[in-house]
């Protein structure tokens, strides 16, 4: 295992220390493994989080226009409720807190528990659960669809809404609308290696890729020999389009790298996705190409479409200023 780390037990702490050192606009709470905005304001607070290893998710999205706090678990393991509680406390600006949870049973249990603890402290808390991955109905860690890169769109949209001074109910509503309009699908070309384990989490043949693989290496739906970018795009676009009941004809597109895939390839994949969408008369309002929710050094990519209306467009376009997303 070749990794730039000191000790597998310290990767999360040291990474978050690095994030806080690199980005003085956020602050790090040790032990709770929480990254929160330094400047507080009176608005609905947004908290997300989950296992580490998906950087820049979620600490990279803490800042103006997106999250107020991100809570990190150990690598690929949900953060415990007390950590999430700390995140909630830090995010609380008096107008309530919304938790954005990815649909993994560990995350669900830990975040909901934290919500109850926070409510016992008198903080108003609500939550939404992102389940954007159309690959498999249930998975190794989830009952129902997994939550993957589409979660970043929820951070962006809900974050922009909260920034307007909206109520917890209103922020939750737009988050749920966003979730209802997101579909994702991924593929992997190589495994990742957990720092504490040291050997690959799964293996693929020398010329094999897996369609539908999850961001922790959970099984997908199909193994296939290496395909041209054009064909990979089809394998990702089609199940997504088939899954939408109806579409507005205008989408935001995210082509997300899983960690080790060069940006060159992500742009090539994006180009192929564009062409397929054109064939379906779907136009791209905004595009995101890069590493948004990774799986350590896994190679591969996921595609996310967010079906847009005027409200979502405006919220996507609203300014944000976070370590990993600015504009």
């Amino acid at each position, binding site marked *: 295992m070749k990794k730039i780390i000191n000790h597998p037990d310290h990767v999360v702490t040291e990474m978050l220390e690095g994030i806080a050192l690199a980005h003085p606009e956020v602050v790090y709470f040790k032990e709770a493994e929480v990254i929160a905005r330094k400047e507080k304001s009176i608005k609905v607070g947004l908290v997300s989080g989950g296992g580490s290893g998906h950087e820049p998710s979620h600490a990279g999205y803490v800042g103006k226009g997106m999250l107020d706090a991100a809570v990190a678990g*150990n690598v690929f*393991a*949900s953060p*415990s*409720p*007390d*950590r999430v509680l700390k995140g909630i406390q830090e995010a609380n600006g008096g107008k309530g807190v919304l938790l954005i949870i990815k649909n993994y*049973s*560990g995350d669900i*249990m*830990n975040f*909901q*528990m934290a919500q*109850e*603890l926070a409510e016992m402290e008198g903080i108003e808390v609500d939550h939404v659960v992102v389940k954007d991955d159309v690959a498999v109905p*249930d*998975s*190794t*860690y989830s*009952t129902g669809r997994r939550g993957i890169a589409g979660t970043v769109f929820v951070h962006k949209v809900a974050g922009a809404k909260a920034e307007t001074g909206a109520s917890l109910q209103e922020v939750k509503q737009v988050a749920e609308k966003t979730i209802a309009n997101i579909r994702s699908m991924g593929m992997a070309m190589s495994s990742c290696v957990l720092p504490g384990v040291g050997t690959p989490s799964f293996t693929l043949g020398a010329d094999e890729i897996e369609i539908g693989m999850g961001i922790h290496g959970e099984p997908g739906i199909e193994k296939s020999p290496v395909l041209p970018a054009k064909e990979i795009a089809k394998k990702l676009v089609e199940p997504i389009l088939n899954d939408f009941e109806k579409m507005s004809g205008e989408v935001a597109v995210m082509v997300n790298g899983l960690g080790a895939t060069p940006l060159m390839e992500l742009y090539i994949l994006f180009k192929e996705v564009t062409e397929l969408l054109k064939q379906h008369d779907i136009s791209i309002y905004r595009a995101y190409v890069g590493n948004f929710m990774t799986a350590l050094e896994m190679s591969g990519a996921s595609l996310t479409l967010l079906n847009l209306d005027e409200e979502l467009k405006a919220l996507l376009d609203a300014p944000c200023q976070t370590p990993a997303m600015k504009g």
Partner: protein
Amino acid sequence: MMSFQLKLTNEQYLLYLEAFMKKLEKEKDYITQLDSVTGDGDHWVNMDMGFRKLIDQKSDLEAVTFGEMFKKIGMTIMSTVGGSSGVLYGSGYIRAAQTVGDLQELDAAKLADMLQAFLNAIMERGKAKPGDKTMIDTLHGGVESMRQKLAENAGDAEVLRALKSGALAGMESTKEMEAAKGRAYYQTNKGVGNLDPGAVTMYYQIEALVDVLMSDQR
């Protein structure tokens, strides 16, 4: 023997925790192996880390109400056990804390209420039910047979024996179940033929509790 009256004190609870810890230490390989077959193999490590921390902080748990004690235990377990079992036990203890409030002692009926609240919290948190091949089966088996004896106005000793035997039966029933929750769900054989590790450690706890309480009887 008929005159045995259950009065669970804070002190006894700490004795019980130590008794459980002793048992757990002994069964390291067995529990790890059970979770390796159906899950990710970390159940013993998770439980050991959390309960060891509890015992270390024992002095914090002395001379407080049951409500406070359970809340503290819940918070410690939640943050140190980790994994599914951490949040499930944490939820159980925190709900139990609400049930027992500022009581200094628990009688048999209150113990049953407390365990029921514990069970309900786990079921809600895990969105699971008896028969899903989890720790729930053990606790549910124990609580059901305990409540039946209580309904029959049985003596406390009989009630406690029913708690233990019901829990054992519940644990054993997980062997032939297909998992519906937790990792084993996603294994092709769904864990049939293996006890569920969480069901086993739950039994160790009930067994230790009953044994500590009954030892007073002699």
